[in-house]
């Protein structure tokens, strides 16, 4: 049942570029998909392990910068050593971007998980701010506030077949969609495995989790590595799609956007960040016809507060509950009245 539904949704999204001719809308969907990918990775930490990481944009930005610099090349001097890198194909940049961000996830995880709760939040925010300040001030490498322009778009293919460079929005759409599907499957398999269960156990009750033999740091760090890598990859896609990046990419508001996507959709659910990502990817396009960006942000902030008060679990669990109640009710009518489904 749910598999059929998932496939129908996938089929719908596969068909989008076939009938959506407006390039601006398609562009919105591509950017929305990239942020959705980042939100899915954030959900691993925020939703499944219950660690409110508010520095997530650091992984996203690191991925973007690593991939951009890999494909643009750079030349910096560190302690009198001159390091020069010739441009490599963007595909390698994507791999490297994900890997470096994943490595950062490992290192930050090892360090930051020594503290919990509010302290963890503050360490992650600080980490992202430090990275932003480096991107802003290491002008030799990053070009600082002047941005890195002219990042080449992704080129796919192999020697014997030939290459295809992704100039069109439709092609980028399919690439992003592919990554979303792969990520979705990876996270689903992880969550349904002992690894994911250990993460959920740590979220629900850390002391009890250790009492059944689960190592805290091992699984939290594992989640951070996955989250970092996926966010890094989404950053690389962003860099090659938009083709210009600047330190503004590390803005705290970008993390907040991802957090809102996860919270609204439903943290700790597979579909949550997808639903939340779609809402907040598309909402600005609709809202911009009526109100300015400030009012939009005021609405998002108010919505975030509202969600916490009214729908703390998010949209997806609410729909699921409504759905199961509806089916339980019809089953109840069909059979003898039994115990109704409880929440």
């Amino acid at each position, binding site marked *: 049942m749910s598999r059929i539904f998932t496939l129908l949704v996938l089929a719908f999204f596969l068909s989008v570029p076939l009938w959506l001719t407006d390039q601006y809308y398609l562009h919105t969907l591509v950017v929305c998909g990239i942020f959705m990918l980042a939100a899915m990775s954030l959900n691993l930490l925020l939703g499944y392990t219950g660690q409110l990481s508010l520095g997530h944009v650091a992984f996203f930005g690191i991925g973007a910068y690593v991939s951009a610099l890999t494909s643009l090349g750079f030349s910096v001097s560190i302690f009198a050593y001159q390091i020069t890198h010739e441009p490599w194909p963007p595909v390698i940049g994507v791999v490297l971007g994900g890997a470096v961000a994943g490595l950062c996830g490992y290192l930050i995880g090892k360090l930051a998980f020594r503290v919990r709760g509010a302290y963890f939040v503050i360490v992650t925010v600080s980490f992202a701010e430090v990275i932003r300040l480096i991107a802003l001030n290491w002008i030799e490498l990053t070009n600082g506030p002047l941005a890195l322009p002219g990042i080449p778009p992704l080129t796919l293919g192999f020697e014997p077949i030939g290459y295809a460079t992704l100039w069109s929005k439709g092609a980028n759409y399919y690439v992003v969609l592919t990554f979303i599907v792969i990520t979705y499957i990876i996270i689903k398999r992880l969550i349904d495995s002992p690894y994911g269960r250990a993460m959920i156990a740590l979220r629900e*009750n850390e002391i009890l989790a250790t*009492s*059944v033999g689960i190592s805290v740091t091992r699984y939290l760090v594992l989640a951070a590595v996955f989250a970092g890598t996926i966010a890094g990859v989404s950053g690389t896609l962003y860099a090659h799609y938009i083709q210009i990046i600047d330190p503004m990419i590390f803005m705290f508001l970008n993390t907040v956007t991802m957090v809102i996507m996860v919270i609204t959709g439903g943290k700790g659910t597979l579909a949550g960040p997808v639903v939340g990502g779609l809402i907040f990817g598309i909402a600005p396009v609709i809202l911009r016809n009526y109100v300015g960006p400030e009012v939009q942000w005021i609405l998002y902030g108010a919505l975030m507060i509202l969600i916490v008060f009214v729908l703390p679990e998010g949209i997806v669990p609410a729909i699921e509950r409504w759905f199961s109640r509806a089916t339980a009710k019809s089953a109840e009518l069909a059979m003898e009245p039994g115990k109704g489904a409880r929440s």
Partner: protein
Amino acid sequence: MTSAQNTKAILSVENVAMHFGGLIAISDMNFHVNEGELVSLIGPNGAGKTTAFNIITGFQRPTKGRVSFRGTSLAGLKPHQVTSLGLVRTFQRTNLFDKISVFDNVLIGLHRKTSARLLGTLLSLPRERKAEAELRDQAWEILRLVGIEHQAKERASGLPYGDQRLLGVALALAAQPSALLLDEPVSGMNATETGRFIELINKLRSRGTTILLVEHDMPMVMRISDRIVVLNYGRIIANGTPKEIQNDPEVIQAYLGQGVKHA
């Protein structure tokens, strides 16, 4: 009494003391639990039982002395490492993974039994799928043993109170204990629930599980214990069979206080 004299001892607590600043929670504690035995640790409120329990399970480090399980000292081990030796505890208040299903609770409990590898999991290889299926079978088995299999799909927090406590034990059992430490398992239960719990304990004992019990419910303690250790003001005042304990004047005084008259 040293561990050398008790070759059967599976768990031994030697010269353990615990100080919090100037406060002495446990002054000098020595006792052991033999393989297959059910020992209860009792004492009036504030006697130091919870502290003793936390020390034995590695959640707190004693100021001095040592606790060893099957000859391995627990000093410096993290709680999850103590568990991996086969010494598994339950918690005083209902302590479950509240928001997830009963079945998934037990699956989490089975963490130590998992053989899945990360890459295999992500690629969904046959070996990992088989391991997962085996894990699920074991989870059913444990739920049946505890007697809550018909509620497997319920949210843990949705269970009646007595069943929540049973699930707590199921979680501990899933961690493959060779010795089980139960912290006030029947507090707050009604008579029927307590009855079911005693049945479960008898089942576990027939499978050879060693049990250390901290409990306030005296009728139950008297009924099921092989041996009782009584703690008062941080030291052991009695150690013997239920009958010996019930008639020990020092125990009666610890529980009922110094009276002018005596029943």
